[in-house]
């Protein structure tokens, strides 16, 4: 018996464990495997193989039996609140009801992708760099804690991940949104360019419209061809999975790369329950996993552990990692684990029409969109709220066919749509939420999920600062749109739930001091140095940029640090 136990332990021992195979976990796997570490990637969902498992990717509209609408019997398997968003096209990636219930003490929208690749198959692929104006935010404006890193620390890692992932963009030369390693940019259309010119003129070159930098290979380099990825075909069907590998996903990029090294073991259907802390060694020795098919509990062991379950799950795993040494969750002497949860403020939206360029139209599809980098409170405090917002912006011409009438007239108007006699313009805000202690997640005292893991309680709400920011966005964009000659301008505060942005962050923040933060400057737990958290949970503040590029860069940086420390026998 004893021998058998030792054998199993040996069999289940790797150099590294990565929890989660989404955007950040995929990067951890790639970096660690490339550096020669035998790595097991534990993923709670099913496997999704690039191309082979994108069943809807090449379907035409008429190939869908219900033209996209999801039949009732299928619909009933999904949570009621999400039913409205279900489509036949993207159903393979939707999360069924009851898999992981959680308790919304206050309303919170938590969007999850539980399958190999995580939300990298579902994301909108916007990839903007942070600048020091973001990293220095908490210190300057006195909130949260000071970031233990600055732009110079992460800049080379942004370059590292951008080159591999393939990011299209312009070198815009803006201090607030540093340039990166860009592939051929996608162009702005006539109306977006018009807005760009108007803003430069009217706001003294302080407000800009740029093309959003996005993870699309517009001209594949040898490194992308080696991954088996080809030029983006401008299909805009990305959320079905892209058979060309036109956009970055773990499935198309990092995971197959890691697999090719021969060092990766990918184990789907493996929900990590908790991290095992070894009191004698004063570090983590492995993880407990629930096999989601058999519900059996299995242990895996490794020298280092990367926690990449997506922000709230990484909080959940650490909170649930209880030992005599850490009764309140792994590394949580400070009591701050799960606190200072923040997200992006997507409440404000605006639409308008423009009657210029009526002799022009766009041709093909733009998988990205225009982007207005933050312009509020950039260099000093100017408004009655802290920080600021970026915004997406897009214009399109569109066509219209009347659905009035019956018979031949109706048919002809459907067969021959007319170009709209205006362009429609829209924008959506992406505001920085200032993290506060009260906004937190914690474990429910009694409720468990189907795998015996405590349910997560989300307790987060908007602050006055957020509300003021929405108002300012609506006013400023109304003014900017008016100056551009747009008409029929409608600004709304959608009052969406926190979390609707799908950019939830924090709870395991980075900082200088173990008393006021959980992670050090290398994303390692201050108090358990072989555990690294490099997804959104690590974020001390939120910036205004779509966050995933920053998770990728932090992950690659931490993984390379961890390998170096292992070589020096420090871990």
């Amino acid at each position: 018996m004893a021998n058998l136990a030792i054998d199993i332990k040996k069999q289940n021992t790797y150099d590294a464990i990565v929890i989660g195979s989404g955007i950040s976990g995929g990067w951890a796997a790639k970096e660690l495997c490339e550096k020669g570490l035998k790595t097991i990637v534990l993923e709670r969902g099913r496997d999704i193989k690039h191309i082979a498992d994108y069943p809807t990717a090449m379907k035409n509209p008429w190939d869908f039996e219900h033209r996209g609408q999801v039949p009732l019997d299928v619909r009933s398997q999904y949570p009621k609140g999400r039913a409205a968003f279900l489509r036949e096209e993207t159903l393979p990636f939707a999360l069924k009801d009851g898999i992981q219930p959680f308790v919304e003490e206050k309303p919170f929208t938590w969007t999850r992708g539980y399958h190999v690749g995580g939300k990298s198959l579902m994301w909108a692929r916007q990839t903007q760099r942070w600048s020091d104006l973001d990293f220095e935010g908490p210190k300057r404006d006195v909130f949260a804690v000071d970031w233990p890193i600055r732009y110079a620390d992460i800049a080379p890692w942004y370059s590292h991940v951008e080159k591999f992932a393939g990011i299209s963009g312009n070198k815009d030369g803006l201090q607030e949104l540093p340039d990166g390693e860009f592939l051929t940019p996608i162009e702005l259309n006539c109306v977006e360019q018009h807005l760009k010119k108007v803003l430069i003129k009217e706001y003294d070159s302080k407000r800009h419209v740029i093309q959003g930098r996005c993870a699309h290979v517009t001209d594949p380099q040898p490194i992308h061809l080696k991954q088996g990825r080809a030029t983006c075909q401008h299909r805009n069907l990305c959320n079905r999975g892209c058979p060309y590998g036109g956009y970055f996903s773990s499935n198309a990029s990092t995971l197959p790369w890691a697999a090719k090294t021969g060092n990766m073991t990918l184990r789907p259907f493996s929900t990590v329950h908790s991290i095992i802390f070894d009191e004698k060694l004063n570090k983590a020795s492995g993880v407990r996993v629930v096999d989601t098919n058999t519900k059996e509990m299995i242990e895996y062991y490794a020298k280092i552990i990367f926690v990449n379950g997506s922000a709230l799950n990484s909080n959940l795993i650490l909170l649930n990692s209880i030992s005599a040494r850490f009764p309140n969750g792994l590394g949580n002497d400070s009591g701050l684990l799960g606190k200072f949860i923040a997200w992006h403020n997507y409440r404000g939206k605006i639409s308008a029409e423009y009657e210029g360029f009526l002799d022009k139209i766009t041709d093909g599809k733009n998988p990205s969109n225009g982007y207005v980098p933050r312009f509020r409170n950039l260099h000093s405090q100017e408004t009655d709220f802290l920080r600021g917002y970026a915004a997406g912006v897009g214009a399109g011409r569109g066509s219209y066919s009347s659905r009035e009438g019956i018979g031949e007239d109706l048919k002809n108007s459907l067969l021959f749509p007319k170009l709209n006699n205006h362009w429609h313009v829209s924008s959506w805000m992406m505001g920085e939420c200032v993290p506060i202690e009260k906004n937190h997640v914690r474990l429910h005292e009694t409720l468990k999920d189907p795998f015996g893991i405590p349910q997560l309680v989300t307790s987060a709400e908007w602050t006055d600062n957020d509300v003021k920011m929405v108002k300012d966005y609506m006013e400023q964009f109304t003014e900017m749109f008016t100056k551009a000659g747009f008409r029929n301008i409608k600004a709304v505060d959608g009052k969406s739930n926190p979390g609707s942005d799908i950019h939830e962050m924090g709870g395991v923040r980075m900082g200088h001091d173990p008393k006021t933060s959980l992670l050090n400057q290398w994303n390692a737990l201050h108090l358990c140095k072989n555990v690294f958290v490099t997804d959104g949970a690590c974020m001390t503040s939120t910036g205004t940029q779509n966050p995933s590029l920053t998770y990728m860069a932090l992950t690659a940086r931490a993984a390379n640090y961890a390998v170096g420390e292992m070589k020096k026998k420090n871990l």
Partner: protein
Amino acid sequence: MNRRLAIRDLTLALGGLVSIPSWASNGWNANSLSISSSFFKTAEQNILEVIVETIIPESSTKGAKSLGVPAFLQKMLQDCYEAPVSENIKNGLSATDATAQKQFGKPFEGCNTQQKQQILLGFEKSEDTRLKEFYSLIKNLTILGYTTSEYVQTEFLHYNMAPGHYYGCVSVKK
């Protein structure tokens, strides 16, 4: 772009690096629409067909019936709507015949085009919300089925799954 071209381009784009998955080589033929025969009675199916063809008729261009829109409607009504909605559709179908009898002294099918249109347009403006909802759903589904058909998408609406480019500012073709 049609499927064959899409697959060819996919193969080219991937440069033979990856084998074409099974979903791309099989199951590409028209949907086998499975409709349980008991859902609509034959008489109901017949009226539905005539209504759909009245909304979008055949002429020098194809109409809704020859593009299989009636079968699509049945599929949708059977799979995607709660029982009260499909009940209302069944009621609406018999009300259509009843209205034809009342107004023109013959079944709906026997009416001429103008009479059929008159009956349906009457529903559109009807005070009876159930009739109004009946017609509105049938009409919307007919438009959906018609405009997403391969024929309309490829021959009229310039459907192109993979344009391969994006130009932000080109002149409108006259």
